[in-house]
């Protein structure tokens, strides 16, 4: 069991283990893993998870930054170059371009050629849209996967499937699995942090970073751009740090008297938690304060301290990863380009979103690389599904746009043991179906867990009488993506 540092959780556990026994702790968390350990049936998987690490093999990534473009960008206009669409623009699309189920697009819709020019860049000649000029400069650091597919065609279920392995709410998200399995590298920060830009939460809401049936300590902690960066880290108006210190000293002193009198190890654990909380009150605002960054870095990201933007969040993601946060989840709202009006179309909204995203994301990759962090930080960029070949034209709209589409879409990954400068998989000439090397959502999850040192089939959590996995009962590690 290797462990470079410990999470808030595991430090608690260690305190308990130190004071008492591990079994005692298991008993206090009755609903989760107490049962298994109690009956003495399983190996002590749960217990070792608490102590810090469950890994099955040497990891290539220690932490993850997940960049989720909520709403789902159109693969045809960004990464998956399909000249056939331009040749057949305006013609009724063949039936084959429809998925089994659709949200809005009607029969006999017409083909929509991409209004954007593509060029081949990088060592591997990857096609990239003119909307992503900065991305072209990092293309040799990433692995583009053009053969992703999902079986959900609406935002909330598709996002849940992507992050929790199941279309319905109620299961732990990827970050929770890793928090549970690995803890945090920094005991003064939560293991799983969430940053939201675009002014709205993603469709799946907090369920996208929920701990599901795992203890809530493994849930994503949402960082906020207004008010306290994390709920409760700010002291009330009129209380300075010195006074807060004194109050915690008083609380802990009286709690120690309780512990002496009743002998409950949980009281000792609480003393630890208050110390940790006090430290978080300093460490969280510190790490969240991007105004500390040099002007050149702010410039590179296009970040603007004091505002809320994807650029700021990309920079924050670097700072948090650098500080040892295990899983940094970004959601950027506004990519659902149906074309019902200019604020969700291909000609206005999409270029605007690309402009907001392209520079900071490229800056993030370069920044991580320059600091030597990219090699063990896995960065994933994705939407939750693809978009149609056809122009949606909902209610006769004259704005260009594409409907939801599950059968294929493009994502990319970088760092953390991913094979850089590659393009994996392909779609047919329409960009409507995976042509070779299909990668399912569960395959992606299996691969991500693999880079973090886990065999996805053996990372299991007992709840409601059965063992759950992030990958449900599916998923294959995609070795072709790995360096």
């Amino acid at each position: 069991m290797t462990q470079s540092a410990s999470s808030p959780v595991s430090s608690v556990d260690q305190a308990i283990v130190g004071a008492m026994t591990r079994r005692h702790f298991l008993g206090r968390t009755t609903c989760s893993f107490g049962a298994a350990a109690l009956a003495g049936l399983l190996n002590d998987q749960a217990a070792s998870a608490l102590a810090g690490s469950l890994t099955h093999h040497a990891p290539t990534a220690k932490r993850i930054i997940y960049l989720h473009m909520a709403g789902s960008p159109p693969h045809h206009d960004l990464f998956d170059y399909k000249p056939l669409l331009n040749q057949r623009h305006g013609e009724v699309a063949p039936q084959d371009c429809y998925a089994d189920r659709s949200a809005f697009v009607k029969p006999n819709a017409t083909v929509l050629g991409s209004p954007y020019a593509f060029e081949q860049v990088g060592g591997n000649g990857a096609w990239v849209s003119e909307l992503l000029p900065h991305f072209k400069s990092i293309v040799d650091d990433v692995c583009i996967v053009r053969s992703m597919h999902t079986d959900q065609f609406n935002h909330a279920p598709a996002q849940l499937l992507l992050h929790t392995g199941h279309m319905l709410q109620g299961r732990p998200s990827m970050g929770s699995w890793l928090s549970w399995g690995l803890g945090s590298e920094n005991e003064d920060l939560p293991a799983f942090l969430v940053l939201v830009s675009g002014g709205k939460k993603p469709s799946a809401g907090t369920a996208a970073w929920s701990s599901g049936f795992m203890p809530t300590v493994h849930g994503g902690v949402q960082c906020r751009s207004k008010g306290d960066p994390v709920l409760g880290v700010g002291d009330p108006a009129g209380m300075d740090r010195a006074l807060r210190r004194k109050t915690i000293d008083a609380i802990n002193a009286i709690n120690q008297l309780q512990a002496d009198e009743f002998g409950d190890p949980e009281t000792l654990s609480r003393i630890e938690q208050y110390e940790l909380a006090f430290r978080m009150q300093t460490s969280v605002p510190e790490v969240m304060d991007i105004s500390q960054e040099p002007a050149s870095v702010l410039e590179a990201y296009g970040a603007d301290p004091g505002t809320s933007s994807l650029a700021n969040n990309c920079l924050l993601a670097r700072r948090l990863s650098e500080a040892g946060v295990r899983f940094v989840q970004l959601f950027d709202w506004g990519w659902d380009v149906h074309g019902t009006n200019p604020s969700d179309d291909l000609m206005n909204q999409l270029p605007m979103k690309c402009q907001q995203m392209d520079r900071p994301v490229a800056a993030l990759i370069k920044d991580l690389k320059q600091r030597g962090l990219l090699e063990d930080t896995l960065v994933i960029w994705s939407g939750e599904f693809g978009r149609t070949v056809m122009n949606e034209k909902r209610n006769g709209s004259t704005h260009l746009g594409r409907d939801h589409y599950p059968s294929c879409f493009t994502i990319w990954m970088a760092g953390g043991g991913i094979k850089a400068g590659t393009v994996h998989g392909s779609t047919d000439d329409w960009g409507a179906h995976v042509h070779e090397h299909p990668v399912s959502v569960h395959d992606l999850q299996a691969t991500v867990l693999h880079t973090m040192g886990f065999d996805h089939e053996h990372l299991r959590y007992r709840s409601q009488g059965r063992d759950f996995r992030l990958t449900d009962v599916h998923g294959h590690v995609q070795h072709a993506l790995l360096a």
Partner: protein
Amino acid sequence: MLVLLSTLCLGGGPSFNDDVLPILSNNCFTCHGPDEAARQANLRLDTRAGAITGGAIVPGEPDASELLRRVSAAGKQQMPPAHTGKQLSEHQIDILHRWIEVGAPWETHWSFTKPESVAPPEGDAWCRTPVDAFIKRRLDAEGLTPNGDAHRRTLIRRLSLDLTGLPPTPDAMEAFVHDTQPGAYERLVDTLLASPHHGEHAARSWLDLARYADSQGFEKDNLRTMWRYRDWVIDALNADMPFDQFTREQLAGDLLESPTLQQRIATGFHRNTQTNTEGGTDDEEFRCAAVIDRVNTTMQGWMGITAGCAQCHDHKYDPLRHQEYFELFALFNQTADADRGDDAPFIKAPTPDQVQQMAAIDLERKAMDNRLQASDPQMRAAIEDWLASRCGPQDWIVHHPLAAGAANGSLYTVERDGTVQAGGPHPATERTMVELRTDLPAVTALRLEVFTDGKALGRDGNTNIVLNDVKLKTSEAEGFVPFSNAQATFSQKDFDVAEAIDGDDSAGSGWALAPAFDRDHQAVFVLEDPLPVPDNGLVTVMLSQQWSHHGLNRFRVSLTDHPVAALTVSDELAHSNDLEQAALVDPDSRSDAQWRELATAALSTAPQLEDLRNEDAALKQRQSQLDAAIPTALVMESLPHAQQRTTKLFLGGSFLSPDDERGPLQGGTPAFLHPMQRDTSRAATRLDLANWLTASDNPLTARVQVNRIWEQLFGTGLVETVDDFGVQGARPSHPELLDWLALHWQNELNWSPKALLKLLVMSSVYRQSAHIEPVVLEQDPRNRLLSHAPRLRLSAEQLRDSALSCAGLLATHRIGGPSVMPRLPDGMLPQAFTDFVQSESTGDDLQRRGLYTQWRRTGHYPTFATFDAPSRELCQIARERSNTPLQALAMLNDGVFLEAAQGLARRSMVDCADPVGHAFELALARRPTGEERTHLRKIFHGVLAQDDIDHTLATEPIGPLPEELDPDTAVAMTVTCNVILNLDEFINRP
């Protein structure tokens, strides 16, 4: 360390259920268990016959048993195979060896067999109840000594928190501490169980199980009106509804004979499933998801069976078949709900208070209706009065104009009957002057009649007319005299006849008649005071018209001196000969129909009936306001027979893959459990299922429920896996106690929830002190033997309620009602595709019990999420009680807890020489010890000693400080109370 649960039977070899089955289930059943499709090598180890037929086990001959050879083998022969990562320990292999040696005796899984009646052991002096005797016997056997009773102050805080969720009030505490009469404890228990706050607290955990929320879930997560179900749970628990009835009403209240409103509201239990209103979703997919959730929740919530596994395949561990899952599904597949955006079906569900108001209004309505009857003597008298005072047609004198002229060029001709006909050009605006000579000594009112050609009222076929102003003068009056009152047979919307006398003759202010162009109309204009007519008898009427094409076309004026203050006109009177007839008939000869006709007309216009009319209107308004305020409730409603759905097994659990080959399935219950008693001449229903769940043959329901309550009071269930009583679940720590409780509750206590609680809290084991002896930490660190009382971290709701309650801020006077939103942190983000941002409630709705906090699935109230409250997507039987730094941050800095500290500070400062001690006692139900006091005084005086004390700390967010309190002291006390509310003792049930 104790081997608590692996009790090896003395002499008889290992226990199959306790020792052997767990090994087989965990290591072998995935491939050699009940799931036929996944079964390898045609070998099953979940039945004795299967194990023997397959040659895996030769009873009595361990060495000849292939099973033993394979679990010890290496390489390809090894079982379980290496890739599973599982391997049996020496100890486990030894258990299997000894078990086969004694003949491999088989037992049904313990929880699938009915509890057997056992007599409680003889208790000793420590024991107060049979529960204690079971616990004590085990403690004795393990050489442990239970604690004695906790201090009374501890007991009342423990009991209050466990039975009402609230800390004791100072009065209740004093009374209990000083009640030295025998039975004081029991009286306290009875008082707390009788408190209306008991139901609120007890409802909380059931609402977790019922996955109650105030929103639909999924992407949009729109709010839904669900709180009448929540209140039903509170009421049912306060009324101590027996659990079998509680079961029937929630699962099948609509199927009971003549279901009451309450019984229909109860079926909201299974309407807590989510609804997906995201654009373009397949409603059938999410309807099926809801039905699946109903099957899973029912089986788990009542019986601790994890049925969900069998949605996709035969259960891997428990003998629940894939097909049987869909037979359960069939029972829930016949309701009308279908993932509709409006959550239909729902019903109007008035609260008891509203029902009372409705009844009161109904009575008033009846009385009012009587007063409105044409046969009512008072009404008849009023009609007579009205007719007498009314200016009838006979009172109007048509005046033949001397001349009709126009200011802007219209030409008029006067006809023989006094009508004036317009002609000539159409000026943009017009002022028409009509000159009359009258014999009347004075004029009280003017009548204007306008005539239609059947299609149009205006000039040259223009449909409408607009009269912007009308005035009257005599040759001697100084200028025109305005009218004070106007009525018309009809007025166009926004062009009321009153606008013709308002002195404003602009185009927008006038009397018009759209769309009633097809008939004649009349308007009556009344003068404030009678206008004397001079001797020459000359009167001029001025009619101002601002709409060129809508000028007056054909009209006639009449005058009257009828001496009434307010003359009236009504459409009926003007146009109904019947009504005129009725008015003229002698009252004694009027028919009932004529009276009714007159009453209707009089009610709409007669000044004599104005009071009655207003009362009637006010009553109608109250009625419609009440009607609009009545909440709805989502209900289960069975489809009519002809619309019933066909249920098929879903291959792989997917609704897109019905198993057509297997064909339609009928509703039923799993074969490995007791049969469902029902009328077999018809299809099985949800009601049959509800009765099956609480049938005396059911081996699980009572055990699972008793265990659920036990977990709430003792922190850990007798079966630790409160949600899994299947083969993979934990074995009970005290099996005989569990069975005794289950049977006693069903048979002696008649499923009474309060009686069960009382039985448990009256026990010595419950009353113990929480002190932990070091030896216990060694021997039984998880306190499964209960040698001391557990300290339990309060739930999210209890923490909030306790803090606000001891601060005197909690609004407890109302039980139930719509959900509320407490104070929220700044910067909450809206959900995708909506601009909905959570907003705070106002007034004392900010301070209601946590139970009433709006439960929005994708926007969970942040503090509650921090303290392990689930977002309630799925059935949850017990909550985590975690201990994290984010909780510390919330307790220290969250607005609600800060406000509580401020409130507690103020409360403890009023008329009190020792505010620190008082605050401590309000929060913890005891006085601080000397040492504790030293720490608290140090922080208190430390703040006071500061040079520059910031008073916001005592006022934000609670509000300005009362004048009588010293601001510096209030800040010091707030900080001190912030410390007190963060103490481990406050955060825990003692």
